[in-house]
């Protein structure tokens, strides 16, 4: 920021999960000198988990988030498996996979239909009072209903396994607490055709309207970066286990077949004083050059194939949009998310036919056999790492959590800067332009370790400060 510059603040950023603000630092000519995405909430889980028994960790860390509790539950249970040094029963592995698919479906549906569809279908410049899920219900009732039904299906998968939709404490070190009941299996199977129809129609809709957003696709986080995520051993799409792969912006694989327990050889973390979110980076490229993206966009760039036919067809078409290179526009996170919903519904359909899901052998019993353990899985938003150290009895000594949104932090900051430079050229700033900057962040579907659902009803206050701190312009959205 130049000495006589101005700072523009967007606080809070709406329609994302958690609390954040954006500051835009303008120089004397009204040009954007810098832009930052600040995460303003502090949670402290890594600290207050110290001293707790290992067994409680899935239940505690699941509480990090009401949208993606399952992701933490699974990563934590996997870190527990590692400390017990057990191979969990095959049925438990499949059941956990099924729950993670339910989680991906419900979370992706929330991101697309509830949070971003108001921008995409009502328009970036539409009335902010109606640019929310309620406005969507009024203007596009079928799409809104479909979105809610699809999310409900994902939530029902979670409930059928874990006993409740939010914060089930079902996955435990060594496996899971209960199998699927026959009745639940039949109920879920009956809902599959509708879920698949909604997912396919949503993808079709996105393809149809994405042409209208070519400017946004270029301006909202379109830049080269690294991509990181899990793939299967043979390079296929993976969401629960597998090995780590890193790809550069040209599509070259620069790290592959990395055991998730060795994640520290790939990733290091930096801290900035203006955000509670850490900044992980690819260790070999240093900070901040080692910026990488995780999540749906990264996963579809990284993998060589999807496990199911419709999803594979959709992935090929997705990749064709960028020729033989990786897709680099963050705006296409939306696209990738829709492809992943199809993959998740199809994969869930296959899993639901597996007789193992009803097995009662779902939990391995063991004591503390290692004093450290790592659990890695793909959360809807990207790769999630839980890294624990315990004493000989299993009391937690140290916790390191690397969440997907943190890994996208550098990319989100670059997105905000790119969007701000594109849309802000002078002192007066139309509301729709600010919404586009927010939409740049929304594309990543950041989950700011949230317990708060913030969407279009929240007030948005933007204040433009002069060099002496005087208010030059102010806009408030009620």
């Amino acid at each position, binding site marked *: 920021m130049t000495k006589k510059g101005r700072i523009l603040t967007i606080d809070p950023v709406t329609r994302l999960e958690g609390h954040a603000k954006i500051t835009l630092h303008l120089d004397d000519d009204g040009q954007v000198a810098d832009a930052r995405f600040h995460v303003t909430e502090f949670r402290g889980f890594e600290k207050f988990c110290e*001293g*707790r*028994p290992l*067994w*409680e960790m*899935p*239940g*505690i860390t699941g*509480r990090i988030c009401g949208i993606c509790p399952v992701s933490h539950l699974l990563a934590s249970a996997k870190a527990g498996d590692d400390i017990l040094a057990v191979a969990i029963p095959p049925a438990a592995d499949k059941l956990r996979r099924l729950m993670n698919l339910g989680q991906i479906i419900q979370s992706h549906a929330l991101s697309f239909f509830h949070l971003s569809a108001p921008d995409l279908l009502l328009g970036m410049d539409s009335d902010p009072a109606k640019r929310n899920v309620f406005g969507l219900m009024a203007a596009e009732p079928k799409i809104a209903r479909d979105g809610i039904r699809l999310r409900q299906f994902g939530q029902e998968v979670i409930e059928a396994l874990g006993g409740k939709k939010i*914060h089930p*404490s079902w996955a*435990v070190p060594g496996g899971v*607490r209960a199998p699927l009941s026959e009745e639940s299996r039949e109920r879920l199977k009956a809902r599959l055709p509708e879920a698949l129809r909604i997912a396919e129609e949503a993808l079709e809709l996105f393809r149809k309207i994405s042409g209208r957003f070519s400017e946004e696709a270029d301006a909202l986080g379109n830049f080269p970066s690294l991509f990181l995520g899990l793939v299967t051993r043979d390079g296929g799409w993976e969401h629960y286990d597998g090995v780590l792969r890193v790809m550069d912006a040209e599509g070259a694989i620069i790290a592959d077949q990395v055991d998730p327990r060795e994640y520290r050889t790939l990733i290091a973390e930096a801290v900035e004083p203006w955000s509670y979110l850490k900044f992980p980076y690819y260790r070999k490229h240093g900070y901040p050059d080692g910026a990488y993206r995780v999540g749906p966009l990264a996963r579809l760039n990284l993998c060589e194939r999807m496990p199911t036919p419709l999803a594979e067809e959709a992935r090929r078409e997705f990749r064709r949009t960028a020729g033989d290179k990786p897709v680099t526009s963050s705006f296409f996170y939306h696209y990738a998310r829709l492809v992943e919903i199809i993959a998740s519904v199809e994969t869930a359909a296959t899993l639901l036919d597996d007789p193992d899901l009803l097995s009662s052998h779902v939990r391995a*019993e063991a004591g503390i056999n290692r004093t450290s353990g790592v659990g890695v899985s793909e959360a809807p938003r990207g790769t999630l790492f839980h890294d624990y150290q315990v004493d000989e*009895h*299993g*009391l937690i000594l140290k916790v390191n959590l690397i969440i997907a949104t943190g890994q996208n932090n550098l990319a989100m900051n670059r997105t905000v800067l790119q969007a701000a430079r594109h849309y802000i050229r002078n002192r007066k700033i139309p509301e729709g332009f600010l919404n586009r900057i927010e939409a740049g962040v929304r594309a990543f579907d950041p989950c700011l370790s949230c317990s708060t659902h913030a969407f279009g009803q929240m007030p948005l206050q933007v204040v433009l400060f002069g060099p002496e701190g005087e208010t030059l312009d102010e806009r408030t959205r009620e």
Partner: protein
Amino acid sequence: MKVTTLTINGELVSASPGATVLEAARENGIRIPTLCALEGLSTVGACRLCLVEVKGSPRLQPACVTAADEGMEVSTDTDRLRRYRSMILELLFAERNHVCPVCVANGHCELQDRARQAGMDHVRLPYQHPDLPVDITHARFGVDHNRCILCTRCIRVCDELEGAHTWDLAGRGTNARVITDLNQPWGDAVSCTSCGKCAEACPTGAIFKQGSTVGEMEHRSDRIRFISAARARKEWSP
């Protein structure tokens, strides 16, 4: 022996000879909330949740240690009592770190049940957030002092039923802790027979079975009642 006749909540009831007010109420289907009391163990009047009003006495009396007297007039559910009970529960919640959603006893906790029955929806007192340890050195059980309400059920069951007296109380006031042997880690307590009666008797998630995850610790305090009653009847004596 002659039965005792007294009035509880305006109704004439009869109680077995030597019964306490709490026993008299229970014999007649009248509920009085309790926490430290457990059938089969001695009574200590520690938690004060069972306070009742006795006509002629300006002070509230704990029903578990007050003898039911002939002609006594007792009230168990008045505004004043509800106020006191709510305050007692809130004091318990504020004193240590009771976080129900992530507790091993969530859904099977007597403290949680009492709070729900009392309609407690928040705590008016500042939480103390003491920094208390968890001891999981024992091969089969663990104790989390964050969840202990000092009801002393573990101490009594270990002493009176198991005869081991592994558990005892150390310290005073907010520094009071249940301890094993002479304040040794539980795993080093040589007197412990690993019988698990303390885990069954504990009303909260303070004493739990190793490996319990959220909501998995179901206490079977009925087993304590069963053992005690069987012994009293000398069912296992030759």
